[in-house]
């Protein structure tokens, strides 16, 4: 936090960049102003400084100049070729899209990383001020609490454990995962990896992770198998289980605009009070809730299984609405007792 500390770290970087030989801790202590006299205090401070430099991304090399002599103390240096950002030149149109990309991340860790990168690229001579009138403004949120920890685990190749509230489950379950990647679709983040409990690859939605994500192994202990495409795993739900089928429906004239957007062969019937149309669906159980949503503006004529599924869906609305169902009453405990988290 202090100016003095910044000054010391800056001196340390310049000193280690300037040296070609490895400098021992003692040599560093003599060359860099600002270290305390007490050996113990110096040791502690130097350890913290090294850690800070590593966090900053400074490639601190540890080794010794021994030529087989042995017994030489290990030392430190920063090889300039590992430290320096290679030359990069961007044309104005390239710089404009880069500036746009740097604004994509909304808040949090990734936004900070993007502005850090931009700082370095500007330092390399790139002009990244986006001229107005690009006309497009992309944003991605990483607001889900589990995101930073999972991204770090993916980045560092560390296995993790977390509590997961699966859909349809009445309680959370502890899951152990080798994370391979994180992907976002429609504003929702997913983590893909090898599920140690189920012994196969799995996808978890970040919003259903409850509490903290804990790392349970050292960095580099997760290897992503050759040829793994995290996006494909996250969003490929395999071949659809059933073939597309036509459904004949009645749509109230002037209403049911939603299904009309996908309907074929729309033809007026009953003096124009209704239209009859064909919709395509695969799974009656999944399609029925969508149709039920339009209440009495949509009536399924055929096939019978879809018709039954819609009727069942509508009946379940009335059943769900009956307060204190037998199931609910059997729970006993007052819900309020477990609220507030």
């Amino acid at each position, binding site marked *: 936090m202090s100016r003095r500390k910044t000054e010391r770290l800056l001196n340390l970087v310049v000193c280690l960049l300037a040296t070609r030989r490895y400098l021992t801790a003692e040599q560093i202590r003599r060359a860099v102003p600002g270290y305390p006299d007490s050996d113990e205090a110096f040791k502690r401070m130097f350890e913290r400084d090294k850690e800070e430099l590593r966090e900053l991304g400074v490639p601190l090399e540890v080794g010794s100049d021994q030529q087989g002599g042995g017994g030489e103390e290990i030392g430190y240096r920063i090889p300039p070729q590992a430290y320096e950002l290679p030359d990069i030149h961007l044309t104005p149109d390239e710089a404009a899209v880069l500036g746009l990309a740097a604004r994509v991340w909304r808040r949090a860790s990734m936004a900070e990383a993007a502005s850090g990168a931009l700082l370095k690229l500007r330092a390399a*001579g790139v002009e990244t001020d986006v001229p107005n009138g690009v006309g497009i403004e992309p944003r991605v949120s990483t607001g889900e609490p589990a995101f930073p920890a999972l991204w770090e685990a993916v980045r560092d190749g560390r296995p993790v454990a977390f509590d997961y509230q699966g859909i349809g489950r009445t309680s959370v379950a502890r899951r152990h995962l080798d994370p391979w990647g994180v992907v976002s679709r429609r504003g929702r983040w997913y983590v893909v990896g090898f599920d140690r409990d189920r012994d196969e690859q799995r996808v978890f939605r970040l919003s259903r992770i409850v509490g903290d994500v804990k790392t349970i192994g050292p960095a580099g202990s997760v290897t992503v198998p050759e040829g793994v495409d995290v996006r494909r795993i996250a969003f490929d739900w395999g071949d659809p289980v059933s073939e597309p089928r036509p459904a004949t429906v009645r749509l109230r004239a002037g209403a049911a605009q939603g299904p009309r957007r996908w309907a074929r062969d729309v033809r007026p019937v009953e003096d124009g009070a209704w239209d009859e149309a064909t919709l395509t669906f695969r799974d009656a159980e999944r399609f029925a809730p969508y149709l039920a949503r339009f209440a009495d503006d949509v009536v399924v004529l055929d096939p019978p299984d879809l018709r039954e599924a819609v009727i069942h869906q*509508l009946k379940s*609305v009335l059943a769900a609405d009956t307060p204190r169902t037998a199931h609910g009453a059997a729970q006993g405990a007052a819900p309020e007792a477990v609220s507030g988290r």
Partner: protein
Amino acid sequence: MSAPATSTHRLARLLALVPYVVSRDSVALEEAAAAFGVTQKQLIDDLNLLWCVELRGPDPYCPIDLSYEGGEITVAEAESIARPLRLKVDEASALLVALRMLAEIPGLDDRDALSRVIAKLEGAAGTAAAVSSKVAVEVDVHPGSTDPEGGGVGLLREAIARGRRVHLTYYVPARDENTDRDVDPMRLLVVDGNTYLEGWCRRAEAVRLFKLDRIADLSVLDVAAEVPDGAEPIDVDAGLFRPSPHDEAVTLELTPRGRWVADYYPCESVEEIGEGRLRVVLRTPDTRWVRGLALRLGGQGRVVAPERLASEIREDAARALASYGMT
């Protein structure tokens, strides 16, 4: 935008400051302060700190020689910190993932510049670029759109660039209605994978967002767009949809299977009520869509308040059952 003022943040800035000046020969104090997001006073303190760097040892010396006389920064001697530090994995990934996402936006005509900058950045980042393939953000490509070039993005960008008014037929799911309106386009927003047109809606006489996959029909008119001076663009960083305190609060109770509602809709509160069930409160200016939601939920959840809405839902379901000959 101000980063926490820790010493590592400041160190990162100091290490970037020297190469920033070196790569430009000389830079005005004012300009550098703006580029680094600090005050001129802070910047001068930074420069003094750099100037004070000293290496003791056998022959003590000051490796950095710079001046800011007359408000112009010049660096005479920068030694080993003349080049910026390499990109960290986080930094390279944040930019590369964002660039690859941009490359997916259909109808974007800067595609060529995008692939060039991705290649250059991968080159400059070296091994730090590799991890970026483990993060991806998908952009919705609107399969239902009539425009194979991707939901009219190209047309709309052109209309924005040329300052043309557009005519939309827009589907409003909350009311299950198609509406026709003239809109003076302002920007395209791609937020969390969904694409929106932001524009001055002449029907509502207000700034409105139109989700591109709900635009049933789009034409660019031969009329100049007239966005009023007072039309405030939406602050995308504050969130696209901010419920107003005047909106009606709706309370739903969800079974474990209905928990998806909390993922899909911005909820004012989400409360665990045991056995994996949730109680959520939504705020909405128009409760009609909640009726549709309740019918879609079926046994997965129910509206518990307001009672008026709950009884409308019961009536909706009963009427619908009646049309199947059920009572």
